[in-house]
Each structure stands twice: as C-alpha cells, then as structure tokens.
C-alpha cells in the first residue's frame, strides 16, 4: 500500500499532493517511494515525468527542507534529466514555520511548496523550476550589487524571462552584454580611440577592434572574457531539446551562461567607469 510508513495525517498530505500533481502534470511515469536513480542520494516520496525533458519529484514531510533534500541538491542539479523538486506539507506546518525561515530556504533553493489542509485541499504555494536551472533572487541580487540601477533593471527582467524559458532569458542577458560593448565602442569612436564605423560592426568584431586599441590594453582580459561569452552564449536555443540528457545539458549551460553574463557585465562596467565613459543603453 502506498505511503504506508506515514502517519494518517501525512498520508493525507501524500495522497492529496499526488492527486494535485496528477491534475497539474498528468499521470506519466509516476513512481511512488522508489529511487529516481542510483546517482541521486535521495528517494522522493513520489515523482512523475510530465514530459520527455522534465521530471517532478515530491518530498512529503513535516520537516521543511530536510537534510536528505539538502544533501541531494547537487546530485539533482547534475543529473541527466531536469528535475523540479517540490516539498509537500500540511498547511499548518507551512503557516507556523517560525519566521518562515525554512520556507525561505526552500524558495531560495528553487524548491516548490505544496500544502494540504486538514480537509484535504491542496495548493501549490510556490512553483519550482528544475534545480539545474535555478538562480535564486538572492544570488541575483548579490551579483547585481555593483551594477547601475539601469543595468539592474535590465538583468532582473532577463532573469524573469530566464525563469520561464532559460534560452530566452540567456538571450536577453547576452543582449545586455552586446549593448554594453556597443556603448563602449561608440564612446571610443567619439574619443578617436578606434576608427569611425567600428560600432556598426558585429559585437565580436567590435571587441577585436577594442582589443587592438592601445587605450584598451589594460582591459584585454575582460574583452577576451566578453568575446568568449558571446561566442558561447549569444544564440542559445529557446526550444527544449529532444532528449532529457540534452535538455539537462542545455539547462546547465544556460545557467552557467546567465551567471557568466552578470560577471562580464560587472567587468565591462568597470572599464566604462575607468575610462570615464557613460552607460548609454536603452
């Protein structure tokens, strides 16, 4: 009998959250109290495969963000199948979490929350994205600290897009980097540091021109990083891959790319500041 190791109260939470997940994501590939893979050091209460590139795994329990989940986060992130993780608990437990401390830990880690009340009504309180994709708001905010307000807004918008479509989100981040390169090039042109017409070129070629200019000798490492970022992440696919393994790889690559864009933007901003240029992006 499924969930027979639970108390009656937790069995209700397990039954109702499973029913909710079936309504939400269908009944494909449901596994109850069995491991997802030997590579993952965690056995969810149940999981399902709503599509060929996404798995939903749910942990039912009174203890929010249990140690088993904390310990398995790395395995889940690096598994060859994107997995979105939810914790299901009684509504009481969710509401009475002191200072919402453990609820916030779940949210920061990209883990969704399902609650079930005493009458058996289930609700998705927070939606999850695959752990391999997740960039928390906190991580984003800390990476944005030294950027200008305009760049912060741009990256936050890109992050919102990223949360629903990793490819499009990364594309939006790449466009910010391109805009920064363009902005540097236009001001370098005006200062006569590079030839007129440089800013009209493709971003990669602009970087080559800047790299060759004497005024940018001290910033070659940053320009190199920007060039390699654009080469790697300029045109990410916005569509899910054909297989789960490819999708997991694409998702991880997009996450790396998005985080890289934040680092590159910060370095480009330092060049702009050092050369007394202005950030002129629309």
């Amino acid at each position: 009998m499924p969930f027979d190791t639970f108390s009656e109260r937790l069995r209700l939470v397990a039954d109702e959250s499973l029913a909710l997940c079936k309504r939400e994501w269908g009944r494909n590939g449901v596994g109850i109290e069995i491991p997802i893979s030997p590579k993952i050091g965690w056995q969810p209460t149940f999981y399902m495969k709503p599509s060929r590139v996404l798995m939903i795994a749910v942990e039912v329990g009174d203890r929010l963000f249990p140690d088993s989940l904390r310990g398995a986060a790395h395995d889940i992130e690096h598994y060859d199948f994107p997995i979105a993780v939810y914790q299901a608990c009684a509504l009481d437990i969710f509401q009475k979490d002191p200072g919402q401390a453990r609820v916030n830990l779940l949210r920061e880690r990209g883990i969704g929350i399902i609650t079930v009340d005493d009458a058996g009504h289930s609700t998705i309180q927070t939606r999850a994205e695959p752990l391999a994709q997740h960039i928390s708001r906190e991580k984003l905010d800390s990476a944005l600290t030294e950027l200008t307000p305009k760049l912060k807004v741009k990256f936050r918008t890109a992050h919102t897009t990223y949360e629903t479509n990793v490819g499009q989100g990364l594309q939006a981040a790449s466009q910010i980097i391109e805009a920064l390169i363009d902005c540097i090039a236009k001001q370098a042109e005006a200062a006569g540091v590079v030839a007129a017409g440089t800013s009209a070129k493709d971003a990669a070629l602009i970087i080559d021109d800047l790299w060759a200019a004497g005024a940018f000798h001290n910033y070659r490492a940053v320009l190199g990083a920007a060039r390699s970022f654009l080469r790697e992440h300029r045109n990410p696919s916005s569509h899910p891959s054909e297989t789960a393994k490819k999708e997991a790889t694409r998702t991880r690559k997009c996450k790396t790319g998005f985080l890289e864009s934040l680092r590159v933007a910060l370095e480009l901003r330092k060049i702009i500041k050092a050369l007394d240029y202005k950030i002129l992006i629309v």
Partner: protein
Amino acid sequence: MSDVLKEIAPSKIERNPDNPRIFFRDEEMDTLTASIRRYGIQVPITVYSEGSHFVLIDGERRWRCARKLNLKSMPALVRGKPSRLKNILLMFNIHALREQWDYLTIAHKLPDVIELFQKENSGREPTEAELSELTGLTRGQIRRCRFLLDLPKKYREILEEELALPKQFQKLSEDFFIEMERALKTVQHRVPSALNTLNSARDALITKFRNETIGNITDFRMLSKIATSVKRLGVRETKAREALQSIFDPHSKIGIEQVFAQQFEMKFDERKVILSADSIFDFLEQSLNDSSTTKISDQLRKSLSRLHRLIERFLKP
C-alpha cells in the same frame, strides 16, 4: 544459528509488523538522516531472514533513513527467525535499554505480550513483576502504560493524532492523559457525585487545557487534592463537589489552580503547619524530658525565640 553480519540493500528489508513503534517524527528522523549522510550507519540493524527478504527486528529508523538517502546497502546482523513472543520481547528489551518509546507505543503492544504469555503458560496472566522482567520495563512504566491502555478509544485516537505531530505543535502529551486519568480516578473514588460522566469530565478538561484555562498538567494533582480534602481535611462533600463541578463545566472559564487557591490551598497549608507544629512540640517535649539533650544549639534557640514572639503576636486577642 549465530548472528551473521551482512551488507543488505534496504529494498530487501521489510518492516516488522509487530514493531510497537508507530510514531516516527520527521524532526528526529532528519537529525538521524544528517548523521548517516555524514558518517554512515555506525551500528548495524538487526534482521531475520524470511524467504528472499529480511524482516527488521531493530533499526527501523536507520532503515527508513537509508531508504530516504537511497543507500545501496546497509550493515545488518542477520539472526534466526524468532517466535512471535520472542520477536516482540526482543524489541521491547532493546528499547527499554536504549531509547525509550512513547508510552502509547508500548501500551498498544502490551496486550499482545500478555496474550502470548498466556498461551505459553496455560492461560495464566503474567503478574506485573513478570511483565516487568519480560519486557525490561519498570513496574511504574507498566502502570503508566496501563493508564493509556484503559483510555476509551476516542481519547487514545486524540493522543495518537497529537503524538504524530511535530513536537512544537503537540499540545496534549502522554503525561497530560496519565495525570488527568490519575486525578479522575481519585475523583471517581472520593467524590463520585461530582462526575456527570467520566467522558464529559475528560472533554471539559481537554478543552480547558487546550484553551489554557488549565495552565499546567501538574494542576491535575490539585484536582486530586480537592477530591481527597473531604476525608483528609474534613471539607464538606457538597463544597468539594461544587468546586469540582465548576471545573468540569466546559462552559465556565474556571481552572483547577484558581479553584484550589481560592477554596482549598489555605486548608492544606494549615494542615501542613499543624503537622509541623506537632513535630516541634514533640521535639521540645522530648528535649525537656531528656536532661542529656536539653542543651540546644544557639541557632535553634534563636529560631524558637523568633517563632515564640510571632506566635504571641498571632494569638493575641
């Protein structure tokens, strides 16, 4: 068959249907999971072999953690299959020596032990001492279990629900029910007219404890004192009855401590003072009669002088 140490896949192990333990709180399990994740399973579980799988004798929490952590294998001592009575008693003794189960857990299983003992002993019921020896529990623990076992089903279910909750959400504990039942037993014995029905009294006390009209489970001892005050202090039965009935009234906001402090505490204190005064009187009289001990210490002399002055003031018309 001697015990054999093996590495066994958790998926090949099954729960023991006779394991009395029914509550596995997530908070406690999480601590154990964290320890196992960091340091592994330090103490092998104990199982017996049955067909193609193994059945747990000891170590359900470790086994559950191993499953949660998706461990490939775990160390286990494999024993021969015990008889059902031996199986239960093994589990009792392991836990009596190590980690204490909830009393309700034990209470649920005691009738099985008694029944199996009877089968092996021509229908004779074990004495409390025999039960204590068999299970490794003290006689006091067995008596506490019996209080819970004697609870009507409805209240055992309330307690079960509470015990399944995380510790911070538990309001009613086993101790609450044990203290309440002891007090109600005293009331039933000493002032039975105060009880409409036992269950209505139970319901009122539970409600009042939940809404904090009764602040502490030790208040139930005052309830017993009120019931015994008729015989011990000569309180009129009608007074004790009315006091108890006001406590058992689910609609009143009257708690046990309030009633006891207002109507009975002084009488109990007086009784205590009388006993102390008698004791002082006896000591002094004996000291005066026995010439060898008439020399009392300065400290006692000082205390008696202070007491003497106060008594004179107190008794002055």
